[in-house]
């Protein structure tokens, strides 16, 4: 912890620090809370998000699990049924797939199966997204699988400002949460400690930038692209608002419709594959529920319908910053 702490004092609070702070707070405020995952103990996780927590809380509360994700998720179900509040860390997005049976068949269904709301207070933390030149299956955007599953809440932070509060909201909830951490943004933005937001409603979208001419809808790893675009387009006299969805399931329709209706022109951007995606669902909602208030057809930027490519090709594959600028210019023209 000490090295990390020193780094933070020098340069401000990153999203990785904010999430770690949230985990620390969660462990300190409820003895039922546990962290489980591969290498989360002595090593502090491959992204060092749990750095220092095992030495602070012990091996029974910050648990190095065997290398088996289905067993991890299934064991978390049993722990939660028996009064614990497990937070499980999946090492990389592409490693969640062995746990899908447990997530889809039990984590998502157990409460409804026995008609007891709030039965499984489990948080599944997953680093997601690409643009880090990683190996195969280390840059996936698996959110659609979870968002498609009833009774799983899916949220994603995009800034150190709210990451701690969002994590704590998920941990304190009695509902199962999938918490998607855009790994590229772990250490990108730095804020002052005091700027952290104390509390957020995990079901609410966040207006990350003001604007009237167009609305960029983004979440997780694309929010920083959207903010940059909004900033740059201001030089051209285009004011583009940025809506960070935060909650991918359920979608905060109220805020989405309010902001989209106000701007009348919408671009949705996501790293995930377009087909049957969160982004395409947002566009479908706008088309079916808000058609009258739109000035032009929404534009959708997402990844093509093919597997995530080797690192050399990922910039071609993912929707780019330039694509986003062009799309916004196009809808406001």
């Amino acid at each position, binding site marked *: 912890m000490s090295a990390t702490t020193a780094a933070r004092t020098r340069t401000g609070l990153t999203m990785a620090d904010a999430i770690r702070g949230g985990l620390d707070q969660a462990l300190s405020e409820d003895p039922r809370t546990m962290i489980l995952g591969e290498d989360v103990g002595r090593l502090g996780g491959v992204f060092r998000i749990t750095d220092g927590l095992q030495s602070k809380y012990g091996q*029974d509360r910050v648990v190095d*699990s*065997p290398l*088996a994700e*289905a*067993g*991890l*998720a*299934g*064991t*978390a*179900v*049993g*722990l*939660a*049924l*028996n*009064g*614990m509040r*497990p937070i499980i860390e999946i090492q990389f997005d592409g490693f969640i797939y*062995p746990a899908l*049976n*447990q997530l889809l*068949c*039990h984590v998502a269904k*157990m409460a409804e*199966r*026995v*008609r007891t709301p709030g039965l499984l207070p489990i948080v599944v933390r997953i680093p997601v997204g690409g643009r880090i030149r990683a190996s195969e299956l280390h840059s996936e955007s698996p959110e659609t699988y979870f968002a498609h599953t009833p009774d799983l809440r899916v949220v994603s932070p995009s800034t150190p400002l709210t990451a701690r509060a969002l994590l704590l909201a998920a941990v304190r909830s009695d509902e199962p949460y999938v918490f998607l951490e855009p790994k590229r943004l772990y250490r990108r933005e730095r804020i002052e400690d005091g700027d952290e937001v104390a509390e957020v409603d995990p079901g609410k979208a966040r207006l990350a930038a003001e604007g009237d001419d167009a609305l960029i809808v983004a979440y997780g790893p694309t929010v920083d692209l959207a903010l940059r675009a909004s900033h740059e387009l201001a030089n051209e006299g285009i004011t583009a608002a940025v809506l960070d969805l935060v909650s991918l399931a359920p979608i905060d329709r109220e805020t989405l419709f309010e902001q989209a209706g106000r701007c009348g022109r919408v671009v949705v951007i996501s790293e995930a594959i377009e087909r049957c995606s969160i982004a395409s669902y947002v566009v479908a909602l706008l088309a079916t529920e808000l058609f009258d208030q739109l000035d032009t057809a929404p534009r959708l930027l997402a990844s093509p319908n093919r597997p995530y490519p080797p690192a050399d090709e990922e910039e071609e594959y993912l929707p780019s910053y330039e694509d986003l600028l062009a799309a916004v210019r196009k809808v406001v023209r």
Partner: protein
Amino acid sequence: MSSVVKVRAAQDWERVYRAMLRGRRFDEIVLALQRQGVVDSFAEGKGQEAAQVGAIADLVDGDMVFPSYRQPAAALERGVEPIDLMRLYAGASFCAWDWRATGFAPYAIPVGSQLAHATGWAWAARLRGEKSVTVVFFGDGSSSQGEVHEAMNYAGVFRAPVIFLLENNGWAISLPTARQTRAESLYLRAPGYGIAGEAVDGNDVEAVRHVVRAAIERARNGDGPTLIEAKTYRLGGHTTSDDHRRYRSEDEVATWAEADPIARLRQAVAGAPEADDALGRIAEEIDVEMNRATDAFLEERGRG
């Protein structure tokens, strides 16, 4: 598997006999209800009553049971009301019983997925310093699932006080155990997890109780999990949608019917006038109990 009666009845044989007979009678009634179109489908437990009752007969308050989906005898012995179990098969509910109060978890349909739940439950109890024990049922078919391996490995690593009760009933729908695994016995996997493992005649209720009691003691003493393979036989179909004559011989079924666990216990105790009286009395009481439940269920389904 020998059909020679070697069952030695325990002092409290009446209790386990009653539980086994209750399971059998429940099976017969729900099978009939399915044929009459009152329930949709049903997975019979016929032939496996000794393995199921023997696995839980010596649990105490605070212990927990995770079933797969073929444990009617165990469910009823845990205190699940017959009508609540009937509601499951009638499509009225996935879990009408109070699983916490009965200590009997909801049925788990994805085979083998429930073992990790038992591991987690047992581990939570150990973390709190409780002495409770968890029993989880699964079958020879689900033993092929990767999640079964993961759950046993986790339980071994974390010394979870859990008993993995494998009801090897010979058939995973149409696949015989010999085609499920090249291993001669499935309990032999236990050393691979560094946990205790035993095989037992699953049609001998006292033999099952004997090995389970040792496993319970190990678990309560902090010595971790046990894998128990109870060798038994599914006398009925996989479910009421199955036609087991398509994949196994009548001779095979008849041979195993001679090793019927309920008949074996009955033969072991019969002869003494007091025991004969008890056998008759228990059968009558089970009939009254089950008929009452069936009437209430039929009434509820508008078939009264």
